[in-house]
């Protein structure tokens, strides 16, 4: 089955109030061309589940997020995402802030169709106070030296309506390959979601994927993907090694716009208020 599609078609499946997952980590291998398409759409009131980077800052800024499920939001080289901070400090989004590992656990539970997974992460911290929907569970097995079972955090499954991830290579059928140092949690995002879209730097023949990297880079198989989008530079301005590093100059300029309304307007007009991703890539090259 040829699953090639476009950012526009993928985003047209979104409905107001849906829960979406975005792969990558911080300012690393984020499906930014899809995020940019969400900015162009009219969809709103999204719940976004992610290890957050500029995807979150941009979506916050555009008023797309109702609820954010996250452990952090960072630009990596700039530790605090300024547009996300601004939204938080304005009380503009509901913040389901978790321990980073709890987020993984929630995705894993959803991907295994489990209602929850137990963990100690969160115990004793205010993660539980700010997330009153997260319950505790008592182990049915007695703890060492006790007649009672240990009480643990029952991290609920983070079920997603749609997941978006970005890979270095893929084929038309939805097999995907990362060539950088870290797979992050992209496979879990796919398995936790009803609909899954994978953008890739380059679509190649299935047989050619063997020439790109070792077997262990082939973390996404076609049962995990409903649509494949060829998006060269699609992770820009986040990093996507070995194809490209983070565009630090661009990221700095983006971050600086949080403090300056005029600068934001110029950034928005130059890079976001564009017809499509091709226009964005053209604008980036023109700098």
């Amino acid at each position: 089955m040829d699953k090639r599609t476009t950012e526009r078609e993928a985003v047209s499946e979104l409905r107001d109030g849906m829960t979406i997952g975005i792969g990558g980590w911080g300012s690393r291998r984020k499906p930014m061309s899809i995020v940019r398409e969400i900015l162009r759409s009219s969809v709103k009131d999204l719940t976004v589940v992610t290890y957050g980077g500029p995807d979150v800052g941009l979506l916050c800024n555009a008023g797309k997020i109702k609820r954010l499920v996250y452990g952090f939001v960072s630009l990596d080289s700039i530790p605090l995402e300024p547009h996300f901070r601004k939204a938080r400090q304005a009380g503009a989004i509901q913040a389901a802030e978790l321990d980073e590992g709890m987020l993984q656990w929630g995705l894993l539970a959803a991907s295994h169709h489990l209602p929850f997974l137990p963990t100690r992460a969160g115990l004793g911290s205010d993660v539980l106070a700010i997330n009153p929907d997260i319950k505790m569970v008592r182990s049915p097995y007695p703890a060492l030296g006790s007649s009672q079972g240990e009480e643990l955090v029952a991290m609920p499954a983070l079920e997603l309506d749609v997941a978006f991830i970005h890979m270095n290579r893929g084929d038309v059928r939805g097999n995907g390959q990362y060539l950088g140092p870290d797979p992050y949690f992209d496979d879990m995002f796919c398995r936790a979601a009803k609909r899954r879209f994978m953008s890739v730097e380059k679509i190649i023949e299935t047989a050619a994927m063997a020439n790109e990297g070792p077997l262990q880079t082939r973390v996404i198989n076609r049962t995990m993907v409903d649509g494949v989008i060829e998006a060269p530079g699609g992770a820009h301005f986040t990093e996507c090694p070995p194809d490209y590093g983070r565009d630090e100059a661009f990221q700095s300029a983006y971050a600086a716009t949080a403090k300056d309304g005029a600068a934001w307007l110029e950034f928005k007009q130059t890079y976001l208020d564009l017809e499509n991703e091709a226009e964005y890539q053209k604008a980036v090259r023109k700098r």
Partner: protein
Amino acid sequence: MTQAAGSNSGSNTGKPTRGEICAVAAAEAFRGNGEILASCFGTAPAVGARLAKLTFEPDLLMTDGVCTVVDNPSPVSGPAPAPIVEAWLPFRTIFDHLWNGNRHVIMAASQIDRFGNQNFACIGPHAKPTAQLLGMRGAPGNSISHITSYWVASQTKTVFVEKVDIVSGVGYDRAAKLGPASTRGHDVRCVISNLAVYDFQTPDHRMRLRSIHPGVGIDEVVANTGFELVIEGKIPETRSPTDEELRLIREQIDPKGFLNKEVANPS
């Protein structure tokens, strides 16, 4: 400015800077840890972990800050040698590793209280904070699973507080309520600031002044602490680096003296 504010090209036997004292205190935090993953936030802890690994704790595991364990972690400043990669440690494996308990992390604290409850998530009410900081990150899971210490580059009463706005890293009073099974990994080892070193070796695990940096008075420590510290007997001075440690810091680990930009040297 002081002799060390810029580069470290000067002598290796001169008076150590406050930053160098802090780095040695951070190195000492890892003493006895053996073969364990050492993770750091901040410059002084990063220098300290490297110093410990190069001297008395050679078996420490350190990452490149991304996803590989490297036997020769890159210096905090200056040119880095080609990495000698020991293992692959992507983020998902980091969680496996830390929940397994084999780690000592030194995290930053925007606020910390007398029982070692730490906050670096946000200041003010969580629903609408006056300052959104890092978020919970891995602090809840870290602090409940393995050895955790904290680094405060500039100690004031707004950092050492009576009550933190939100608990990211779990302190001793909260851990005690969870019972022994849940907290088998909980061990808030120490707090290092620009003024002193603190631990929790008291009957009810209240923060105790463990040692005071050379040139700092107890009155200065107390004036910059927003709760009552346990101060017992004569407080020792935080040890100064040896000549060899100073040489390692200034020539190998931090030749550009980033340490002295993070920690102001008293004039």
